[in-house]
């Protein structure tokens, strides 16, 4: 059985129309049902998460369920002096078990201009703390620009469309510190195989997109792919585990 470590996953937020937040227990139960061993977890759905500091507290309160859940908090530049110095934020996250962070420039109203965010990105790069860039917050060009300015910072692209293959291939080839989650919305006919051949299986990460969508589609997309067992193991869990172990 190929071990799976989900890079694009969340709980703790309130799904649209629901009256209760999606609990950590629900996430763990679904992971067990489809045999996903570990997950990098953000607070999601994020629709009503207007307070990133409170969102992070709720995320850490979910716990780690052994080491099955790895927190991925939100991080912001301290350009307005309201969230604490970036190196302090990063140190606090790592000491609480975080091994990656999520960037939300649109939702949290900050700029990707170098003069407005490089202090934050420097702090992340210093610790090799992977940064998740979701496509509802970034364009692929935005994410590539960060990858180019901070070559030691792992940039993880999530929520990439099935229509982006013409951009993804040169992006992954041009920026060796970029990684792609194969979770929603990546459903490309023989696309995983083409990316593995063009950029290497080491750059692809298993991800689901839960709870916006179910977990099983991403699983079958990987396990029925024309890949070797070794490539599936790298994509399924090995690559993400290696990235998170690289945090200083």
């Amino acid at each position, binding site marked *: 059985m190929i071990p799976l470590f989900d890079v694009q996953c969340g709980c703790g937020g309130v799904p649209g129309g629901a009256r209760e937040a999606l609990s950590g227990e629900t996430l763990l139960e679904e992971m067990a049902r489809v045999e996903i061993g570990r997950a990098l977890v953000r607070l999601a759905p994020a629709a009503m998460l207007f307070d990133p500091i409170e969102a992070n507290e709720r995320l850490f309160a979910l716990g780690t369920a052994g080491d099955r859940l790895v927190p991925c908090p939100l991080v912001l530049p301290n350009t307005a002096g309201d969230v604490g110095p970036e190196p302090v934020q990063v140190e606090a996250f790592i000491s609480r078990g975080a091994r990656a962070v999520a960037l939300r420039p649109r939702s949290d109203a900050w700029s990707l201009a170098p003069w407005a965010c490089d202090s934050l990105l420097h702090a992340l790069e210093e610790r090799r703390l992977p940064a998740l860039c979701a496509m509802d917050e970034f364009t692929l060009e935005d994410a590539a620009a960060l990858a180019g300015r901070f070559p030691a910072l792992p940039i993880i692209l999530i929520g990439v469309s099935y229509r982006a293959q013409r951009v993804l291939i040169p992006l992954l080839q041009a920026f060796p510190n970029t990684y792609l989650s194969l979770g929603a919305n990546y459903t490309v006919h*023989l696309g995983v195989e083409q990316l593995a051949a063009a950029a290497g299986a080491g750059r692809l990460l298993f991800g689901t997109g839960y709870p916006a969508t179910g977990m*099983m589609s991403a699983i079958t997309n990987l396990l029925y792919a024309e890949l070797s067992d070794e490539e599936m193991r790298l994509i399924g869990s090995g690559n993400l585990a290696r990235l998170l172990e690289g945090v200083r």
Partner: protein
Amino acid sequence: METLLSRGRAGASLADVGVIDLHGHLGRYSFAIPDLSAGSIVRVLDRVGVECVACSHMQCMGYRAHWANDEVLAAMRAHPGRILGYINLWPASVDAVRVEVEKRVAQGFMGVKLHNGNGFTYSDPAYAPAYAIAHDCHLPILFHTWGDDPTLRDVREIAARYPGAPCLLAHAGAAAEDKYLALAHDLPNIYLDTALSCPPCGLIERLVAGAGAERVVFGSDIYFLSLPHQIGKILGARISDEEKRLILGGNARMLLHR
């Protein structure tokens, strides 16, 4: 105990399940698809263990229906029994549609695929011969839908007027789930197709609860989308394996008289 969920989790072949995919495509589209050959589709069918896929050409949104149908016919002949053909139609006139449908049915096409992205509604009079032939011959009609009222209203009228034609609603639940369920409830020849790039959690369960598993049919949208990805939501749904088998192939087998 081995279940369809556990088989999907293992990446094991479904060859003994009799999976039939009722929503596939051939031909180029605007975004890049890594392999546009019909052979690449068959390779995927073999890997997953899918018996066959019913394909229309990507030109179902365009005006080159004759050429598109010839392309599909070539794939049908190259891969007999594995690639089935939907007829694409351009509503130039009543006569043109009638001639094209009669010709393609004689060539072995199994149904009709319509897309209203071509600028014509499904109620356009030129389509009438296609509906009449589908009714008489019990040919499935796959309608592109996205939950909007005018489209679903058209399909409701067509399904009511031509009860012998199974009407498959592509992308069921992309929006307005309740309207799809109401259509399936009201009309016995309505079937809900599962192709959707990013279905919300629990969609399959809700379609089955609201319409019955016997009214839901597996469609992947290959190679617009990935078949291995699309089949996961069926294998992983919180429904019985018996219901999954109906969706994956049992219902399609009945519709195609296979």
